[in-house]
């Protein structure tokens, strides 16, 4: 077994764990971060698979920008929810 193989298996396990967190973690924020991390680990794997272009794209777009967009939306949804709660309290 070459060390590359071992690394890739480790990466795979981490990625599956990330996917699990993204699906099942109670906190939305953690879930979104986990989904982004899944993309980041995937881009490491792309590097191993001799695909630097893809790795860059996945890191910048697949995990970077989409995570940011997720957060923006989550933030909006939360603020409305909070406002409502405040209104309810009043």
């Amino acid at each position, binding site marked *: 077994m070459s060390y590359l193989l071992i690394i890739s298996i480790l990466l795979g396990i981490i990625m599956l764990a990330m996917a699990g967190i993204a699906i099942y973690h109670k906190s939305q924020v953690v879930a979104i971060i986990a989904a982004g991390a899944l993309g980041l680990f995937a881009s490491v794997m792309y590097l191993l698979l001799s695909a*630097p*272009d*893809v*790795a*860059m*794209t996945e890191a*910048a*777009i697949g995990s*970077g*920008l989409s995570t*940011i*967009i997720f957060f*923006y*939306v989550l933030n*909006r949804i939360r*603020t*409305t929810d909070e*406002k*409502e709660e405040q209104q309810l309290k009043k």
Partner: protein
Amino acid sequence: MKNIFIIIIIAAFGVMLYPLFEDFSGNDELSELASFYAQKENVEKVNSANLVTAVVVTYRGLDTLGEVTILFLAAAIIAFSLRKHSVERDLRRNSEIFKTASKVLIPIIMMVGVYIFMNGHLSPGGGFQGGAVLASAVILMLLAFPNIPFNSKLFAYTESISGLVFVGLAAIGALIGSGYLDNAILPLGTFGELLSAGAIPVIYSFVGLKVGAELSNILNEFQSVQSDN
């Protein structure tokens, strides 16, 4: 109960994927298509050192045109569907350190972005990656200086001009070159230099600008959207 049904479905899906796995045997050599791209005389026809870029911009340039269109569409849809809601900025004060750092970082990040898409035919990266980096500079700006006016017109014009240049170059290829998106309408230059590979760096630069502008627009719309209540 319902989940059991879905477990069965997913398991069946796995069963369906299995033959793909079973008949997968890795690659020992390039496919016929890829070897064509890697052959010397063909590489010289396009003259791009990064073969992925050659494929993306030239051989499969029509896909890239579609891809740019998708971002364009997404930006347009987000723009017209969120426009109805009031724009009201979150005027939070940011720390001075963050602001100062941002002032330094933003130009650097932008430079990096430009570098990435201009060298797309030589090294990893290209218009999309560079554009995304540009957009991240814009995010930083939005976060650090939430009250500076976002000049959406500038972005819109950048987007339109870049798109038109892309389509225009493509059409010129069909008119004077040997086909739509032919990169040989500009001099191919010397292999491995910045000004080589014909229209590729030009196209990729404009793709970069366009993607950067579109992503910035999208982010800005998300940033500025405020709920009705």
